């Protein structure tokens, strides 16, 4: 495989010819939405590329705060009663032409690594992901836990990610 590397999404990346097979995700990445989200600081976007142009895959990271209410007393003591910070992988897609090459794993690991690095500066309790249709199993295999009432949203505690990178 070529020397792939990650970098923040920028003008020189060929967004227009990117396709991951999911129409909504393609529209988001090829069109204005991703650019607007990044320029308005709603999300940060990162791409995996072999040459600084071709996009093998991308993902977005943004902050999310989570408030847990109505907890049993035993758990209440273990979490702050205020909202806690977490890191959201809002979107992730890999080029359809690179299916089965482990690109998804590289994207996820880089997202976890960046979330972990960021958590050393601004606290984050977990990485949360919104899985697109068909992608849920991929996250379950990588030890994400689905929420019960919203099974397409899954999370991985930062404590586990600490073990990956420390």
């Amino acid at each position, binding site marked *: 495989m070529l020397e792939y590397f990650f970098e923040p999404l920028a003008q020189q990346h060929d967004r227009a010819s990117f396709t991951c097979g999911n129409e909504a995700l393609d529209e988001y990445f090829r069109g204005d939405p991703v650019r607007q989200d990044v320029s308005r600081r709603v999300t940060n976007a990162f791409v995996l590329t072999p040459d600084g142009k071709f996009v093998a895959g991308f993902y977005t990271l943004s902050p999310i705060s989570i*408030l847990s209410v*109505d907890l049993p007393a035993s758990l209440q003591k*273990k979490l702050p009663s205020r909202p806690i910070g977490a890191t959201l992988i809002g979107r992730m897609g890999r080029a359809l032409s690179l299916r089965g090459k482990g690109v998804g794993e590289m994207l996820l690991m880089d997202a976890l690594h960046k979330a972990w690095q960021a958590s050393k500066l601004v606290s984050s309790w977990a990485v949360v992901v919104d899985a697109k249709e068909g992608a849920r199993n991929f996250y379950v*295999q*990588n030890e994400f836990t689905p929420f019960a009432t919203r099974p397409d949203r899954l999370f991985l505690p930062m404590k586990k990610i600490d073990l*990956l990178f420390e």
Partner: protein
Amino acid sequence: MAATAAPMRRETARGARERLDLRLRPEQKAEIERAAHIKGLTVTDFIVQNAVATARQAIREYETWTLERPDAEIFAAALAEPAALGPQLAEAGKRYKERFLQKPGHPAEPDA
């Protein structure tokens, strides 16, 4: 949130109103009219009350996601319990580190 909501309410109280034109299918309109009638509201009041409530919820969800049971319990329990890595995730992490973090001067990881 409260700071931005307050001036909006004052402005409404002073009577300022704006228009919002929208198109919808006849059957959607008929259904809304029927529901407004059932609730004893004008169509405008019915639409505005419901749209504003949904909008507030969307904004609130974006800013803070509130978990109730059973999600809150699943989440809190996982964060509280001691962490251990399963073999698949550990292997994936190893592959990633070998490839992306152990190359001095690599463009993606200049400090690694």
